[in-house]
C-alpha cells in the first residue's frame, strides 16, 4: 500500500504505473506488441542505393502504359521508357528522329515512310522490328486497349472506321510494315502535325511479348522490356518511380545520368521542403510550386519560368439567356481586368491572354482581341437591355475546388471576377463551387452559366486548341455551334501550305475571341521548374513542359554527394 503510493508519486511515466496493476498487464503487453510490430514493419523497408538525380515529378502516375497515359507527369516517365518513331528535341520542342532514323513524305503529304534504325533492341535484349511498330499502333487503336487517346490515330486512313467496328480487318488500316526496317503510313489528308503525333506516347513502341504475357499489369513487372533511354527499376505507388539508364538504347552513349528517382508529390509545400533540404534536385511540375511563395521564389536564381502551352479561360453557356446574346458575352469579357488577376493572384510571370492559342506555338500567330475596356462593356450591356446591370438575371460562375495545389487558385480567381463584374457592370454573379468530377459532368451537360476552364495543348500545334470548338466536339462544352468555324478548321487541316493554314486558323480563332466570344481567355499558364542550374544541366524551357530525362545531367556529382552527406550527418 505504501509502496503503491511512492511509485505513483515518484514515477509519472505511464508504463511503470501500469506495471503495478496486476489486472492490466495486457495494456503494457499490448503497447509493447504494437511497438514490436511497427519496428518489424519499418525495418522491413529495403535500403536502396541513392539515386543520382531526384525529381519531384507531380501526381502519382495513373499509368505508365504509353497507350493509356493522359496526364503530363505520367507522360514524362512513359516517354523515358518507351520511344516512338520520332522524339521531341529537348531544345526546340520539334520532332527529331527517334527509333526511325529518317522518313520520307510523299509530295501530296499523305504517305509517310519511316526507316527504322538497324540493330534496335529492347532493354532486355530482344530485337525491335517494324512488326513491333505495327503491333504497338494497332494495339493503341484496338478498342480492347481502351486508350483515351486512340483519337490521335484517327487521322490514319480507315483507322476510325476500324475503331468503330465498321471495318474488322486491321490490315486495311493505313499502316504497314514494308519489310523489317521500312514502315509506311497512309493519312486521310496532309496533316501538318503528324510527326508531332509520332513523338506522342500513344504511338510509342511497346513490347508485345511482355504485354501478352502479363496483361493489364505488364508495365509494373520488372524486368520490363523498354525501347526508350531508361528502363524501369521499381514503381511503388505514391512512393516513387525509379528508372535506370537503358544501356541498349540506340543513343545510350548520350544518356548521362545513371539512376533517377521520380517522386509523386501532391503538396507544393512538401515539394518545396524536399527541395530545400537537398533531397530533391528538381521540382518541375507547375502545380507543385507553392503559389503563396511565388513572389519570393521568382526572385531566386533556382527559379526558371518559361512559356507554356496552356490557357486559363472561362466558358459561356450560350444556350442560356441572356448569354445567348453576343453583346452580353462581350460586355462580360471586356469588364474582365486580366492584369489584376495576374498581378494579385498568380505571381509566376504569367502573361494575360487577349487571345486563346498561347504565344510560342509552332507556325502560328494569333489574332489580337480587345483588352480591358469597362466603358465599352457598360455600353454593350445597356444596348443588350441591361443598363447599369438593371434587370440582369442571377447567373452563376461555376468552378471546381480540389485539395490539390494548382486548383486552389480557381476560387481566388472566381472571387476577383465576381467583384469586377459587380464593380464595372453592376451585375451580380453568384459563385458556385462544386467537386471536380461533378464539375466536369455538369460542364459536359451544359449545366452551368459561366464556368472556369483550362486547356493544355497535347502537341505543339494550334489545332490542339482550336479543333475542340467545332460543333461535334465533346470538348466544346459551350453550346456554341458555328458552321463557318467548322468549315475553317476542316479546311485548315487539309491545307498543306503552312502559311495558308495559319491564316485559316487565325480567322477561326478570331470568331472565338473577337466576334462570337463563347469563351474568354484570361491568362496563359507559365511553366515553372525549380533547380540550381549550376548543379543540374540539361533542363530546357519547354512549351509542352516536357523535359526528356536523357538530356539531364549533373556536371559535378561529387559536390552533390558531399552536400547530401553533410545533410545526413545531422539527420541520421
Amino acid at each position, binding site marked *: 500500500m505504501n509502496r503503491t503510493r511512492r511509485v505513483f508519486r515518484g514515477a509519472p511515466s505511464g508504463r511503470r504505473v501500469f506495471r503495478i496493476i496486476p489486472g492490466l498487464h495486457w495494456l503494457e503487453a499490448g503497447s509493447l506488441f504494437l511497438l514490436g510490430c511497427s519496428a518489424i514493419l519499418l525495418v522491413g523497408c529495403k535500403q536502396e542505393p541513392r539515386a543520382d538525380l531526384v525529381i519531384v515529378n507531380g501526381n502519382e502516375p495513373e499509368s505508365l502504359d504509353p497507350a493509356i497515359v493522359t496526364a503530363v507527369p505520367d507522360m514524362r516517365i512513359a516517354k523515358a521508357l518507351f520511344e516512338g518513331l520520332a522524339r521531341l528535341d529537348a531544345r526546340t520542342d520539334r520532332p527529331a528522329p527517334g527509333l526511325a532514323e529518317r522518313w520520307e513524305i510523299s509530295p501530296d503529304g499523305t504517305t509517310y515512310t519511316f526507316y527504322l534504325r538497324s540493330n534496335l533492341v529492347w532493354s532486355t535484349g530482344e530485337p525491335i522490328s517494324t512488326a513491333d511498330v505495327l503491333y504497338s499502333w494497332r494495339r493503341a487503336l484496338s478498342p480492347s486497349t481502351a486508350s483515351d487517346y486512340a483519337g490521335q490515330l484517327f487521322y490514319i486512313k480507315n483507322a476510325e472506321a476500324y475503331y468503330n467496328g465498321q471495318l474488322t480487318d486491321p490490315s486495311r488500316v493505313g499502316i504497314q510494315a514494308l519489310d523489317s526496317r521500312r514502315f509506311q503510313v497512309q493519312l486521310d489528308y496532309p496533316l501538318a502535325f503528324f510527326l508531332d503525333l509520332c513523338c506522342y506516347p500513344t504511338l510509342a513502341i511497346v513490347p508485345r511479348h511482355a504485354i501478352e504475357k502479363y496483361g493489364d499489369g505488364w508495365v509494373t513487372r520488372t524486368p520490363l522490356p523498354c525501347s526508350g533511354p531508361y528502363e524501369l527499376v521499381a514503381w511503388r505507388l505514391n512512393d516513387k518511380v525509379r528508372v535506370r539508364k537503358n544501356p541498349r538504347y540506340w543513343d545510350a552513349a548520350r544518356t548521362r545520368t545513371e539512376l533517377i528517382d521520380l517522386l509523386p508529390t501532391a503538396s507544393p509545400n512538401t515539394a518545396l521542403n524536399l527541395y530545400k533540404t537537398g533531397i530533391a534536385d528538381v521540382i518541375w511540375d507547375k502545380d507543385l510550386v507553392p503559389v*503563396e511563395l511565388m513572389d519570393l521564389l521568382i526572385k531566386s536564381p533556382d527559379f526558371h519560368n518559361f512559356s507554356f502551352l496552356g490557357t486559363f479561360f472561362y466558358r459561356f453557356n450560350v444556350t442560356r439567356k441572356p448569354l445567348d446574346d453576343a453583346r452580353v458575352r462581350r460586355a462580360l469579357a471586356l469588364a474582365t481586368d486580366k492584369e489584376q488577376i495576374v498581378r494579385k493572384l498568380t505571381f509566376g510571370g504569367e502573361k494575360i491572354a487577349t487571345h486563346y492559342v498561347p504565344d510560342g506555338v509552332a507556325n502560328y500567330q494569333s489574332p489580337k482581341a480587345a483588352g480591358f475596356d469597362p466603358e465599352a462593356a457598360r455600353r454593350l450591356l445597356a444596348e443588350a437591355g441591361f443598363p447599369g446591370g438593371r434587370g440582369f438575371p442571377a447567373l452563376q460562375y461555376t468552378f471546381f475546388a*480540389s*485539395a490539390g495545389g494548382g486548383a*486552389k487558385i480557381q476560387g*481566388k480567381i*472566381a*472571387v*476577383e471576377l465576381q467583384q469586377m463584374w459587380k464593380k464595372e457592370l453592376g451585375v451580380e454573379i453568384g*459563385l458556385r463551387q462544386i467537386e471536380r468530377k*461533378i464539375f466536369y459532368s455538369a460542364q459536359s451537360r451544359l449545366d452551368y452559366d459561366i464556368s472556369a476552364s483550362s486547356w493544355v495543348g497535347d502537341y505543339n500545334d494550334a489545332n490542339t486548341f482550336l479543333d475542340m470548338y467545332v460543333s461535334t466536339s465533346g470538348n466544346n462544352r459551350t453550346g456554341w455551334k458555328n458552321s463557318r468555324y467548322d468549315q475553317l478548321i476542316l479546311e485548315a487541316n487539309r491545307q498543306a501550305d503552312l502559311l495558308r493554314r495559319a491564316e485559316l486558323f487565325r480567322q477561326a480563332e478570331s470568331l472565338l475571341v473577337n466576334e462570337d466570344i463563347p469563351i474568354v481567355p484570361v491568362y496563359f499558364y507559365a511553366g515553372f521548374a525549380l533547380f540550381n542550374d549550376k548543379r543540374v544541366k540539361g533542363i530546357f524551357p519547354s512549351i509542352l513542359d516536357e523535359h526528356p530525362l536523357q538530356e539531364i545531367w549533373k556536371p559535378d556529382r561529387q559536390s552533390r554527394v558531399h552536400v547530401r552527406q553533410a545533410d545526413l550527418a545531422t539527420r541520421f
Partner: protein
Amino acid sequence: MSETLASSLRQDNPGAGHLGPNQRAWRRFQRNRPALISLLFLLGLLALVGSWPVMLNVAARGGARSAAWAEHLQPDRLSNDQFRPPTLAHLCGTDVHGRDLFSRILFGAQVSLLVGFVGAGISLVIGVLWGAIAGYVGGRTDGWMMRTVDVFYSLPSIIFVIVLVTTLEGGLKRVVMAFGIGSTDLTARLLLLVIGLGAVSWLTMARIVRGQVLTLRARPFVDASRALGAGPVRILFQHIIPNTLGIIITYLMLTIPGIILYESFLSYLGLGVEPPMASWGLLIAEGADQINPLRIYWWLIVFPAVFLVSTLLALNLVGDGLRDAWDVRAD
C-alpha cells in the same frame, strides 16, 4: 445497497431542500469561476458575431467617416492591400484579396458555430438515443442497432456527402425558395452541410453511450429501481442517461471541433461553404498553406486558430461546469 437505494430515491424526489434543483445548480455553477468566465466570454463572442453585420450596416448609413470605416471592413470588399500584417485599421491583417481578416473571422464564425452546434445537436439526439436503447435493451436489438452503426461507419464519408449534396441540393433549394429564407443557394448549402456532417458524426457517440449503458444497467441502483417497479423508459431517462451525462457532454465538446474541422476539408473538396463565404475551418486551412520555411503570414493562421481554440476551451469549461452543477451526488 441500502445507501444506493437511498441515493436513487433521492434522485426521484428532488427538491428536498428549500431550493429547487435548478436554483441549486445555478448557485453551484456561479461558484465555478472558470466556467462562469467562459460563459461570459461565449456570450460576448456570440453578441459580437451577431451584431457585427448590423454594426457594419448601421455604420454604412452613417456619416462619411463611419461609412468609409464600414466599407473598409466589409468581409467581401476586395482591395489591393494584400497580405497586410495587423494594424489598427485591420486588426487581424488582410488576406490575399486584401480583405479584412477580423471581419472575415466574425462572419466565418456564423457558419462554423452553426455547423458545429447543429451537427453536435444531431449527434447528441440520435447518438445518445441510439446508443442508450441498444445498450439497455441488449440482445438481438443491440446486435442489429450496432451492426447498423458499423455499416454506416464503414461507408466512405466523402462519397456519402457527395451523393447527399447532389441528390438533395436541387430539392432543398426549392424548399428554401418556397419559404423565402435568406439567400437561396447559401441557405441550401448550409443546410446540406449541417445534415451531412450531423449524419456522419453521431456514430461514435452512439458507440460510447452504448458502452456506458452496458455497464450501468448491471449496477445495483438500476436493479433497485427496477425492483421498485420503474419502467424501462423511466430507468433510461432518470437513472442511466443522467449517469452518462458527463461522458456525453465531454464527447460532445470533442465533436464540435471535429465537425468544424471536417467542414474545412469538405469545403476544400468543393462540398462545403463556397467563396466568398468563409468559415473558421476554411480560414485555418488557408492559413496552414502559409506555413512554410521561407515566409509565414503568421496572422492568417494565428488569429483564426486563436478564435477557434479560445471558443472551444470556453465551451469545454462551461461543459465541465454544467456537468458539475447538475451532478446530484455533489452535495
